[in-house]
């Protein structure tokens, strides 16, 4: 498996509370406090790898830092630290402001959750799909028109819909336009930010099957972001579970959902409503998540809500340790390991 994307200790911080005004910062310095502004640690020291042709799932609840991580990978945001290597090219060197003109721009593209909001209301479907082709592939005129039409039909979009505006298309049709635009320039990595969250079940199935078929046809790699575990289970080979800016568990999707090791993943898997409920007593998370602002680096982020929180969790931050193909950031992972070995 050749590595396509190598993410190494990436972190992303935002000024907290919209940043202090000059007055407040001056007062802070007067009172001898650190001149550092309080920061939200949206993404905190995240490392993982995406291999060529692989579909990796990224799962986590709102506020866990998924979209910040995704926006740094696609170079819409600059990283605060760490490196993002696409093949042999280090992407984080060039600031995101000018990355739009970079020759590798076309290699990573993105499909957005609300397709309606991610297409300019004044653009027709044709304009939306042709824009990247004009800018990144310098196509014009007839060749442009042909390319747009081939990509549209590959995505199952009837050609007569190309002159429609977003508000004249159904949810499913808009999702197809979003996908067509992203694959038009032939990217190596396609980042999908909850592409079917806003769709009804019946439409969701069609779009998911389209995505799988496109991946087989063009050999792209996917990073599939979602809060819906049952969708991730169907589509992804491997899955990363994020909580408050850190990866707490990762591994083959089927195994992670069958026998989750990290307490948070266990709570997540237990919380998902199942069609054929086996009536087993469900693990419930109590309390509220810890604050992401200037978090204490040696306390486990899940401490306080974790059913197994002990003294060790309060003093040392559990590192992400590997157990074969599985990784988990918890001092007590071993407890669940024998069960995993005997089962698989």
């Amino acid at each position: 498996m050749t590595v396509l994307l190598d993410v190494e200790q990436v972190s992303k911080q935002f000024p907290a509370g919209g940043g202090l005004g000059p007055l407040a910062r001056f007062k802070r310095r007067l009172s001898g406090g650190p001149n550092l502004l309080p920061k939200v640690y949206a993404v905190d020291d995240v490392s993982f790898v995406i291999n060529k042709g692989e579909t990796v799932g990224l799962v986590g609840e709102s506020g866990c830092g998924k979209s910040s991580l995704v926006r740094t990978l696609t170079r819409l945001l600059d990283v605060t630290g760490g490196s993002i290597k696409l093949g042999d090219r280090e992407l984080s060197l060039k600031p995101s402001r000018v990355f739009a003109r970079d020759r590798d721009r076309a290699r990573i593209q993105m499909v957005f959750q609300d397709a309606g909001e991610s297409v300019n209301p004044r653009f027709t479907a044709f304009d939306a799909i042709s824009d990247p082709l004009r800018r990144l592939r310098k196509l014009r005129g007839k060749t442009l028109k042909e390319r747009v039409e081939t990509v549209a039909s590959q995505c199952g979009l009837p050609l007569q819909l190309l002159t429609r505006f977003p508000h004249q298309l159904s949810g499913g049709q808009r999702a197809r336009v979003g996908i067509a635009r992203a694959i038009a320039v032939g990217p190596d990595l396609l980042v999908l930010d909850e592409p079917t969250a806003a769709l009804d079940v019946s439409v969701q199935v069609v779009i998911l099957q389209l995505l799988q078929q496109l991946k087989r046809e063009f050999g792209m790699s996917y990073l599939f972001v979602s809060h819906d575990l049952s969708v991730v289970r169907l589509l992804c080979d491997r899955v990363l579970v994020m909580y408050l800016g850190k990866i707490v568990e990762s591994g083959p999707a089927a195994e992670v959902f069958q026998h989750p090791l990290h307490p948070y993943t266990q709570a997540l898997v237990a919380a998902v409503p199942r069609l054929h409920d086996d009536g087993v007593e469900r693990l419930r998370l109590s309390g509220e998540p810890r604050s992401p602002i200037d978090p204490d680096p040696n306390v486990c982020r899940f401490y306080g809500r974790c059913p197994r929180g002990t003294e060790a969790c309060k003093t040392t931050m559990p590192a992400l340790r590997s157990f074969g193909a599985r990784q988990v950031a918890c001092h007590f992972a071993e407890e669940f390991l024998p069960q995993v070995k005997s089962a698989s």
Partner: protein
Amino acid sequence: MTDIAAAPPRESALAALYKHSRYIIGENPVTGFAFALFVLIVLAAILGPHIVPYDPLQSDTTQALKPPSAHHWFGTDQIGRDVFSRVVVATRLDFFIAVASVVLVFLMGGLAGVAAGFFGGWTDRIVGRIADTIMAFPLFVLAMGIVAALGNTVQNIIIATAIVNFPLYARIARSEANIRREAGFVEAARLSGNSDWRILAFQILPNVFPILVVQMSLTMGYAILNAAGLSFIGLGVRPPTPEWGIMVAEGAAFMVAGEWWNAFFPGAALMVAVFCFNLLGDGLRDMVDPRRRT
């Protein structure tokens, strides 16, 4: 609620706008009426001097202060000039003042606001500081000050009206650009290789422009009122050029003594024009953004 999944039949962009606007005008006759009135005003502004029965400047003391009659539909003023001719000819000047100030304030306030909203940082702070300083003055008082300082030529009235409205446009443009700055389609545009300037010009502005157009038609009404107000206190257009504000000012003294037509007709024309622009503004707002119906 029910969102209709089946898309309506195929339409080109222009046909959609035409059908939409015909629907708005149809459903809201008031906007239709305002649009007709607007066309009338534009015609008066263009053809005015050629179709007017009398020469608006030619005085005839023997005919001074005659009430409205068959000869002089709007009567005559204190030095015998035909009030009707002057009112019609004045349309051109007032209309010009309105359009010029609105275009100027759009270029100054609108564009500065969009840039401030989109780029944020220093541009935002500078534009914000300028807007705050101008906003510290009551509108008309500042206009008075500017025109008094620069001299009351038509050109200065236009500049004063534009400066006074700068904060309003800057604020609207800034907020509309700001909410779109993080919109999905802007991020998609960046992914598609568009530079920030290209996104601002071809993606943000076309979405903000219609909202500013609505404001422009409301400001046209304000611009005429402002110019007339300045003339009324002797800071506007200098007599004898026919302009509604100055005509009302000159006629005011006679009104109290009973010769009402002298001030009434220019005042009425002024009101009708401003009324028309405001109604048009409301109609445009419905066309641009039905949700923001006021």
